[in-house]
């Protein structure tokens, strides 16, 4: 509960119209894409950095938790106000402040939707590569807070590689500027990247300067079906390791995921298909045509059932719709889903997936795997119907999978972040000493622990 005097102070300083304490609003901010639920006491919709700074100063004074929120599409509970307090809705801070084509930089407020930025940049023939599956609705602020990777990471790297500078409101309400709006800068410690991926636990980004690239002239797309996973993985190896292509995207989809999209997809999927690769190649026109035909051959050499080359933009879109519809379609199979996103060295993908499917059988729980196979990054969805016993098995299954992942040198999260859904598994990957260091850093920036409490650290 927030005391009346605090509420008055907030209304007084940032305007009653930006402060909401009615239950309808609070419910809207009680969850994210993990389906966790927890009511905030208050919702605040800042329009300016001063609003953010004032809100956080007051929260700090009264020890009130603050949970920043972009689109609420996160998959680790980052935006769920599990300790109540203030949900800070940043969607109104959604201005693209400046795109500078000459400097290849853009400065945005955190609430800008990623796809909107990409579209605006494209008008100037510029390109912002990081593209999570949620790009159509998730925000740059959220992408930076989690350090998302997305579909183009194989060739273009992840969000971190594009963040040049930030304006950040710290937990005491003060505002700092990290980095510079230049393509290079090394003065002092790299506070910018230290804040990237900090999951709202250290401060709130109010402006973000990103690096842009020239827009590739053309994108070519191939969708290829395989009768088993091994053929698909052999194809991946051949594309990357034997032939040294660096595709813009290299996505794989497993059998269960294919089953889930068979219905909704307009594309005809061959009956015997148990794996699918979706490959984008970009560059200048001639290059793309060449690469696509070579990759088409590689697919065929590795026993592809079909290798379909998109001939039009509509076809491209249709192929990608299959990939994008997996996540929602999985709810057809069962009502609950735990979305894990581990990453292992690519050479270990085969053995880890084998182990995952074995575990799935042992626990009689369905799993669907898909994701950015070129980087060894797998979205593992554990699908189940609610129930106490099941919950325990799901938990055990996930534990076993993550133990396996870490034992082969992998990470428990590649782009979704830890949040509260994975905080208990952090100790698998990080040593007690490393966790202590991180906790010490958290305390240095946020001594009262008001910023997104209950996240990252178990």
């Amino acid at each position, binding site marked *: 509960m927030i005391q009346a005097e605090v509420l008055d102070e907030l209304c007084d300083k940032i305007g009653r119209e930006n402060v909401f304490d009615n239950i309808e609003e609070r419910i809207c901010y009680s969850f994210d894409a993990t389906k966790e639920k927890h009511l905030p006491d208050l919702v605040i919709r800042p329009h300016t950095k001063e609003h953010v700074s004032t809100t956080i100063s007051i929260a700090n004074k009264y020890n009130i938790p603050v949970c920043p929120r972009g689109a609420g599409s996160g998959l680790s509970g980052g935006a769920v106000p599990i300790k109540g307090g203030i949900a800070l809705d940043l969607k109104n801070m959604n201005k693209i402040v400046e795109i*500078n*084509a*000459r*400097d290849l*930089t853009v400065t945005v407020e955190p609430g800008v939707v990623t796809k909107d930025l990409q579209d605006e940049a494209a008008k100037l023939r510029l390109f912002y590569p990081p593209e999570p599956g949620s790009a159509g609705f998730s925000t740059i602020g959220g992408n930076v807070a989690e*350090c998302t990777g997305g579909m183009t*990471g194989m060739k273009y790297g*992840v969000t*971190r*590689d594009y963040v040049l500078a930030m304006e950040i409101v710290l937990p005491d309400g*003060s505002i*700092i*500027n990290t980095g*510079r709006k*230049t*393509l*290079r800068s*090394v*003065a*002092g*410690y790299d*506070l910018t*990247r*230290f804040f990237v991926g*900090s999951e709202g636990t250290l401060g709130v980004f109010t402006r973000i300067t990103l690096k842009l*690239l*020239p*827009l590739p*002239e053309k994108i070519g797309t191939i969708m290829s079906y395989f009768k088993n996973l091994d053929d698909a993985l052999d194809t991946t*190896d051949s594309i990357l*390791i034997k032939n*040294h*292509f660096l595709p813009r995207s290299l996505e794989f989809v497993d059998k269960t995921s294919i089953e889930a999209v068979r219905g909704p997809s307009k594309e005809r999927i061959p009956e015997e298909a148990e794996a699918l690769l979706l490959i984008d190649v970009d560059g200048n026109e*001639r*290059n793309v045509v*060449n690469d696509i035909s070579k990759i088409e051959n590689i697919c065929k050499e590795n026993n592809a059932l079909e290798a379909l080359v998109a001939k039009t933009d509509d076809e491209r879109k249709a192929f990608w719709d299959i990939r994008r519809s997996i996540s929602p379609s999985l709810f057809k199979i069962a009502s609950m889903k735990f979305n894990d996103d581990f990453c*292992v*060295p*690519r050479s270990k993908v085969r053995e880890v997936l084998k182990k995952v499917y074995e575990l799935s059988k042992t626990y009689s729980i369905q799993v669907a795997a898909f994701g950015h196979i070129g*980087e*060894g990054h797998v979205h593992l969805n554990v699908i189940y119907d609610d129930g106490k016993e099941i919950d325990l098995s799901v938990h055990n299954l996930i534990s076993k999978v993550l133990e396996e992942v870490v034992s082969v*040198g*992998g*990470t*428990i*999260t*590649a782009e*979704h*972040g*830890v949040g509260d859904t994975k905080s208990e598994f952090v100790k698998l*990957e*990080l040593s007690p000493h*490393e*966790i202590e260091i*991180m906790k*010490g*850093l*958290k305390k*240095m920036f946020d001594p009262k622990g008001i910023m997104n409490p209950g996240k*990252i650290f178990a």
Partner: protein
Amino acid sequence: MKLFKKTKTKDTKDTKDTKDIRVLNDLINTLGRKKVLSEIEDRVCYSFDSTKQKALPDIIIRPTSTSDISATLSIANKYEVPIYARGAGTGLSGGAVPIHGGIVFDLKSMNRIIDICPEDFVATVEPGVVTKHFQDEVAKHGLFYPPDPSSAAFSTIGGNVAECAGGITGLKYGVTRDYVLALEIVLPDGSVINTGRKTLRSVTGYDLTRLFVGSEGTLGIFTRITVKLIPQPEKIDTLAAFFSDRNDAIDAADSIIDNNILPRTLEFMDQMSINAVRGYGGVAIDEDVKALLLIDIDGTGESIKHELSIVENVCKENRALRVRVAETAKERDSIWAVRRIISPALYNIATHKINEDICVPRSKIKEMLLKVDEINKKYPIYVANFGHIGDGNIHVNLMYKDEPGQEELAERMVHEIMEEVVACGGTISGEHGIGNKKSQFMELEISPQELAIMKRLKSFFDPKGIMNPGKMFPS
């Protein structure tokens, strides 16, 4: 020895010497005689870097393992002895100079490539591996480690990571930071941590890896570095474009990028740099040339041909006097020789050099160079500008004579330049780091609050302040 500089009185001298001897004995007992050097001949060899500053260390340690480093740091921490990490000593900001005496780690003795995993596109190295050697080794697997500072043939990966070097491929491929995936680090108390993972992605917890990249040896010692690799481009073609006017060269660079081409390298040289190279011999550049661009395009044969013809046209449209496309590997090499010899050639102009590496938004380059010209009018100093124009990272070299007062003048001029750089949104260092050479300018760019945060981070990791003291922060 003078490990404890502050104890100067005669009374404490004996105690000090006893302590000094104890440090040396502890080190020898722990590491063995061979790894501990304290003769004056050795100490002199570790007293400088490319900034030509000099300060004698007391002891040099040549570690061969993480545990050697850990043991040394534990001892240094116990006795509060300053400690410095040194790769090849080619740094340009004083990072490796032991300005407060103490212990220098010579990390060239840890120069193993631990593994190259062609299937995973990752490799793990010890810090003393020379960058070029590493690039050559990964190339055998058809792979590519892009960060390529001009010093690549002798500088080390450890040093590159400590400074976050960019190099000549940065516009297309990014900087060192973008390739570091995981680090094994010995902290100032001697404990060992592992940050990041040997995977292409990982976001578990705070990004300690990048906090340590570019930390200039002030937070800990990297003992293993895991980097990302990418497939080696099929082919590289090279082109040199000659201009009679600096602004034409800058316009051409802009217009190449406007044409959606990201060259592998896009290097600029101004008239003074060209004059220096001309005088150095071996390279003939026509008299009417006042600026030039050196451009590498990489990719597949087909796409290079296509992009090269666009670049050639763009240069001509922007009033290039001549454009020369390298037809053979030998020609390619002779074009690049021009860029490689700039640094030594500059000493033809004057015996002393201050090498600054400012970086500004690309749209501000013309304005910035004009400001440098303006400032230069007030000083009897020669200025040569060259560098990574695509990134806005210009190496501004101030050349001055070995005469009384000249150095002070040069430093005053640098200060004026730095003020202008920061005023137009730039940074005082694009890739060389701050060290002690630029620490006095930190306050121009970094606000007191941000500086205070950085200092708190420093004392969080290194409460006794033993790691590379006197670097990064203004005194």
